[in-house]
């Protein structure tokens, strides 16, 4: 009797425990899933905005074409300006003296000193020095670049590599200036050597803050092991991309005296980087992807060094026109990249140029066929049928590429025929993604290795990591919103018939997508961006409450500020190009001319006089020249609830 009741009490007790456990597990799984979804949403935001920016690059390219077509009008007023803008700064056959010879290394220099010819001890030396945040002297940077160019010139467009079970090869993807990731790879996988070959698949620079250091380690390793360290060009190995995405700034900041020389030499080095690597005649390794018209034979034989930049498509210039220009302008000024010997032979054909763009910019997708890559503005989206077709045509088995950030550091698609490998962990934000590398050997299946750089010794719990990522993503999204504030408000008001200040969630989402075109899940993101009342209606002005653009001059109109803020990266690139001697200054006249052209091409509805006025107020030295970096830095977004936002109190 007693037994019976006590065992049923026990049963009831364990049943309650079971149900309690079920409740907790159920709740936790739901919570954890929602965290992971938020992480994905944040990643989507980062990616959308990144690609939208790349699309902006294409607009800029069109602008340069536009400028060229229209400059005859401009040059009538200011021929000198034009020649400065389009001046031919080619220095193809300068010798070592011109680069390195004039640079001295002082005795007081405490950084690493390389010994030429380079050996593996120099690799170690550099790594140890960079771990301690030392900066390599410009003299050595220039030496390395010069030597690298010499050796690269002898390499074919595609390097053919053979592996064996005892000599496997490691493929790494985008590094984007993240030194910690490169060091982690070398730590886990060993330094490059004759028995430990590597392929680095492009995008070594931009965005991260150690692009110089990565380049130096890779180039020095290449010089020591030219047959075992393979470098493929990525879309960021492009001097114009560098102007927008941070590498130019990094160089000029670290090398105040010799930065310009380094950048000029680098321009050339980039063009000599091989296009791809082919392993065991089976695996094609290129940075971006392919298109339905990819012609490997043509790519093998073209003169790859004529590919200067994605923003410099070949100009349809004819001999008479060139001569005409020469007469008008009085100098031999023509767009950069085009020699004044006037012949088309100095450029790639349009077809060749497009072939390279496809290799550097395309992305694989699940949809069959080949479509223009609209989010990036260059290259295409290629489907599994395209992959099969091209791989079969050249008797290849697999395509390894990079170019896209993946949460796990790598991703396999197209039935196992396409592998994406991305080696910059935490690319968008701490916790956003892992990095990975691949080891390949003939006769073995590819092995994938993942990692993630962490600052702390023990990693944060998931909810903290997600919070960091999410706030960062929402922050840049809000900056996007504020830069289109006028257009957004107009779109909202069109739908808000009774001027209530409110819209339904569906109406709000529709306008957001219409104006911003980012293809984001607006309904799911709405709680972060707007306030909603108990009826579920959106107070559309609430997005703009805690964020605003700092007005550099109090009286300037909001629409002007917004427009300049929105285009500030483009303007930065344009100014950088005008400022060919990298002085940081341009004249008021140049500024005005530039602005007028920009205004008309981008159909910006701002009065010339307003911009003039603003520039004049910002001519802080009052000497007729504008420090354009100061000009552009004056536009930044203030987040009301920031504890530490940039406060440039030097501008008063």
């Amino acid at each position, binding site marked *: 009797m007693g037994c019976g009741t006590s065992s049923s009490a026990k049963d009831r007790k364990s049943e309650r425990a079971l149900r309690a*456990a079920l409740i907790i597990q159920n709740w936790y799984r*739901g919570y954890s899933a929602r965290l992971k979804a938020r992480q994905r949403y944040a990643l989507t935001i980062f990616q959308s905005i990144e690609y939208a920016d790349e699309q902006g690059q294409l607009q800029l390219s069109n602008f340069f074409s536009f400028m060229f077509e229209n400059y005859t009008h401009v040059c009538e007023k200011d021929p000198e300006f034009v020649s400065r803008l389009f001046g031919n700064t080619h220095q193809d056959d300068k010798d070592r003296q011109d680069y390195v010879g004039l640079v001295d290394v002082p005795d007081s220099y405490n950084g690493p000193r390389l010994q030429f010819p380079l050996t593996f001890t120099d690799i170690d030396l550099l790594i140890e020095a960079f771990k301690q945040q030392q900066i390599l002297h410009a003299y050595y940077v220039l030496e390395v670049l010069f030597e690298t160019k010499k050796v690269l010139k002898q390499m074919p467009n595609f390097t053919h590599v053979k592996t064996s079970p005892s000599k496997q090869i490691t493929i790494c993807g985008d590094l984007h200036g993240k030194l910690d990731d490169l060091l982690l790879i070398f730590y886990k996988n060993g330094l490059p050597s004759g028995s430990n070959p590597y392929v680095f698949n492009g995008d070594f620079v931009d965005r991260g803050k150690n692009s110089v250091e990565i380049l130096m380690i890779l180039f020095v390793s290449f010089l020591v092991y030219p047959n075992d360290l393979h470098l493929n060009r990525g879309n960021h190995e492009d001097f114009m991309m560098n102007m927008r995405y941070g590498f130019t700034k990094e160089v000029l900041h670290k090398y105040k005296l010799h930065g310009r020389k380094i950048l000029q030499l680098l321009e050339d080095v980039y063009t000599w980087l091989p296009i791809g690597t082919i392993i065991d005649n089976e695996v094609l390794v290129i940075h971006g992807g392919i298109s339905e018209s990819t012609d490997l034979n043509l790519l093998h034989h073209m003169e790859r060094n004529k590919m200067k930049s994605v923003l410099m498509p070949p100009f349809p210039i004819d001999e008479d026109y060139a001569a005409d220009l020469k007469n008008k302008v009085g100098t031999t000024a023509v767009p950069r990249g085009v020699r004044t010997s006037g012949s088309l032979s100095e450029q790639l054909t349009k077809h060749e140029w497009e072939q390279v763009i496809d290799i550097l910019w395309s992305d694989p997708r699940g949809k069959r066929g080949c479509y223009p890559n609209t989010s990036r503005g260059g290259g295409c989206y290629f489907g599994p049928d395209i992959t099969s077709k091209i791989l079969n045509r050249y008797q290849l088995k697999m395509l390894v590429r990079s170019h896209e950030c993946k949460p796990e550091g790598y991703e396999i698609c197209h039935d196992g025929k396409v592998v994406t490998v991305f080696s910059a962990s935490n690319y968008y934000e701490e916790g956003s993604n892992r990095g990975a590398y691949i080891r390949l050997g003939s006769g073995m299946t590819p092995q994938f290795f993942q990692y993630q750089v962490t600052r702390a010794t023990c990693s944060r719990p998931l909810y903290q990591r997600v919070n960091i990522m999410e706030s960062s993503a929402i922050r840049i999204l809000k900056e996007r919103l504020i830069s289109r504030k006028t257009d957004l408000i107009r779109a909202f008001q069109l739908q808000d018939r009774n001027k209530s200040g409110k819209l339904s969630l569906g109406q709000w989402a529709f306008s957001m997508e219409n104006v911003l075109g980012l293809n984001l899940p607006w309904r799911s993101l709405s709680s972060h961006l707007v306030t909603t009342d108990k*009826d579920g209606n959106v107070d559309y002005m609430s997005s703009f409450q805690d964020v605003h653009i700092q007005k550099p001059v109090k009286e300037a109109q909001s629409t002007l500020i917004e427009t300049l803020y929105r285009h500030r990266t483009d303007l930065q690139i344009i100014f950088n190009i005008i400022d060919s001697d990298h002085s940081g200054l341009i004249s008021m006249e140049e500024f005005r001319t530039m602005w007028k052209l920009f205004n008309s091409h981008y159909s910006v509805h701002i009065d010339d006089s307003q911009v003039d006025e603003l520039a004049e107020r910002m001519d802080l030295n009052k000497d007729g020249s504008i420090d354009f970096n100061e000009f552009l830095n004056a536009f930044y977004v203030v987040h009301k609830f920031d504890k530490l936002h940039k406060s440039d109190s030097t501008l008063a």
Partner: protein
Amino acid sequence: NPQSFNVSYKKDPEWHGAYSHLARSLPEIAVAEFHKKIKEAFEVFDHESNNTVDVREIGTIIRSLGCCPSEGELHDLIAEVEEEEPTGYIRYEKFLPVMTQVLLERRYRPIPEDILLRAFEVLDPAKRGFLSKEELIKYMTEEGEPFSQEEMEEMLSAAIDPESNSIHYKDYITMMVIDEN
């Protein structure tokens, strides 16, 4: 199917949550809004942009839409949306109608905070206010629908107080609830 839309939900106080704005809408509008929400959640996991997601992510998608099915219920749902010959991928065309019905019928409601707290208290009959690390691990990995090792580590990393090596569940719950709101 809007015809079978049960209007009695309007009286339910729990309804005033994520979908409260639909309380006064016509059923057609409610369904259209559900469709858009489901599409958004699905697309974020559709990496190749071809209207399919990996079956292993379906649980995350369903839960991100506010539902809390148990593992068993999730298995049943997956069976409903899978192909006849499972491919490892779920197509949007199959997922949408099933998920819409789940939302319309308000299935798999989330656990309210107070129920969650009581569940922890059941496991802590001595009313100490905390569970030891070993106790939590034992319950979570041996009872109910057991956690995988990864799930256990993940929960511990946020829940555990490193000094006492225990889980002060009331604080933990409060922290998680704040984080979500």
